[in-house]
């Protein structure tokens, strides 16, 4: 088994105080991304793209170059960066509002072009930064500040399954849905995120890891209840699985 590094041993992780709420999954995923970048020794050639949402401040935590772009447009900007600098590693970090609502056109077409980029997609079934509104990934009957009676399919449609949606596209090389709800799931997520970067380094095309992530604050739950909710409720609508993977030779 691979040795687990302490936070301070991860060069890509900045030694700063977090702004994320207690129990939030972003911090865990940031650490996993930083760990992957360290282990693949790509820190000096990685360019990240920050989304709009709570994690717009990801550049405060990771010690790599970053561009901050309009809401949902990260895959288009990543396309521009990667085409201009094909020898660099380019990744976007996007939430569900960013990627699955306002940015659906950009994510579908970047995937369909087989852009050789990596997407870390955080699905917490809610708009975090704006205060807990309904997201495209909000579960049926889930209460949010804009679905106060619970999400009703007749009014608001159904939870959007991004991995299932993208899995039909020929340009996609690697697609996996993971969660960070338990130590075991975190380890799986760690392997998936690292693999996604390896797929890019092998020039195999588009790679995306969807991470089911807890948002205790906007779910109005305690931290323990929120990870339980990921395991027992959320992953029923969004099953954890590998949808697609190419062989890396």
């Amino acid at each position: 088994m691979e040795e687990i590094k302490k936070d301070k041993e991860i060069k890509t992780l900045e030694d700063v105080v977090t702004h994320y709420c207690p129990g939030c999954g972003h911090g865990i995923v940031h650490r996993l991304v930083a760990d992957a970048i360290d282990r693949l020794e790509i820190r000096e050639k990685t360019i990240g793209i920050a989304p709009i949402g709570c994690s717009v401040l990801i550049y405060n935590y990771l010690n790599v170059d970053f561009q901050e772009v309009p809401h949902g447009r990260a895959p288009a900007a990543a396309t521009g960066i990667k085409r201009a600098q094909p020898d660099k590693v380019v990744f976007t970090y996007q939430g569900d509002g960013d990627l699955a609502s306002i940015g659906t056109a950009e994510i579908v077409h970047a995937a369909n072009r087989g852009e050789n980029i990596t997407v870390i997609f955080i699905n917490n079934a809610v708009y975090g930064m704006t205060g807990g509104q309904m997201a495209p990934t909000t579960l049926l009957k889930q209460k949010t500040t804009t679905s106060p009676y619970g999400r009703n399919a007749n009014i608001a449609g159904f939870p959007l399954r991004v991995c299932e949606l993208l899995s039909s596209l020929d340009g996609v090389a690697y697609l996996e849905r993971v969660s960070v709800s338990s130590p075991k799931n975190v380890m799986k997520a760690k392997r998936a995120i690292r693999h996604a970067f390896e797929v890019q380094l092998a020039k195999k095309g588009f790679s995306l890891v969807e991470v089911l992530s807890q948002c205790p604050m906007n779910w109005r739950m305690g931290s323990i209840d929120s990870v339980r909710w990921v395991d027992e409720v959320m992953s029923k609508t969004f099953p954890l699985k590998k949808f697609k993977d190419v062989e890396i030779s």
Partner: protein
Amino acid sequence: MGKKLLFKGNEAIAEAAIRAGCRYYFGYPITPQNEIPEYMSRRMPEIGGVFIQAESEIAAINMVFGAGGSGVRVMTTTSSPGISLMQEGISYLAGVEIPCVIVNVMRGGPGLGGILPAQSDYFQATKGGGHGDYYCIVLGPSTLQELVEVVFLAFDLADNYRNPVIILADGVIGQMMEPIEFPPEVDISKLPPKKWATTGAKGRKKIILKSLFLDPEKLENHNLHLQKKYKRMQEKEIRWEEINTKDCDLLLVAYGTAARVSKKAVAVAKERGISLGIFRPLTLYPFPYNQLKKAVENGRAKGILVVEMSLGQMIEDVKLSVEGIVPVGFYGRTGGVMLVVDEIIGKAENILKEVM
């Protein structure tokens, strides 16, 4: 200068961009500028450049963002409705200070409008267009020779000021053919390095290209920094042309295709014994406010006639320039209807009757 070549305006824009060092083009089809992406899709692979047909103008401008932030010369082109879609991205480009060249081959609006030439996006181009306190440099060429020179200038200005530059052309310029000579080709390897670009944090601190400043004082300071830059543009980059401005009864003010028609009106009016002059801004932002005022003060023109392929947009800047020292009249056709020389002269005669 090389030999004279007969080029269509849209293709001249594409070829000039390549010769000016642009190797990255992202765009979405829209009439009347489709020859530009078509030309780029042929030429870019020949020279190791990148052409991508984006899924929308929104994606195209954000691809420009990514490539521009990587430090390369990059261009997108579109027509009026496409610019509306790009405004979000243009605001971000201006806020983050990423250089790029954006061409608007204007057509009639509002809404879907039509596909024939117009100049009705002047406000949108010169007054910011998107959200926030920002400006793009805006260039309004009137001949194809000037157009190709302006393309070279646009890339230089974009790099020098780290600012988006808009070339405000119209369907006439895009679709017409004229002989042109391209300026000498730019050697990309000799362009100054862009140390601010995100190229990977190798041997240096990380670079973050962003427009988010949650601390209000920091955001105000960022805006004041941008304003200083705009002031520098106003001091150094204003370009215009004057024809017969001293010894004329009436001064026409027009840019782009409207200036071409106005020049014809000057010649026809002269045969009829009416002396007209032309003041033609080339930079629409920064606008030659003082230069226009001086031209009026130093000449004997008793009034101004603004000629536009719109229902009156640049006229507001003309009025701000002359501050009421002479009357300012207007002649414009819109929706793709062409300006008529006799109508220009008729309007000029009416103004002269009133002031004489």
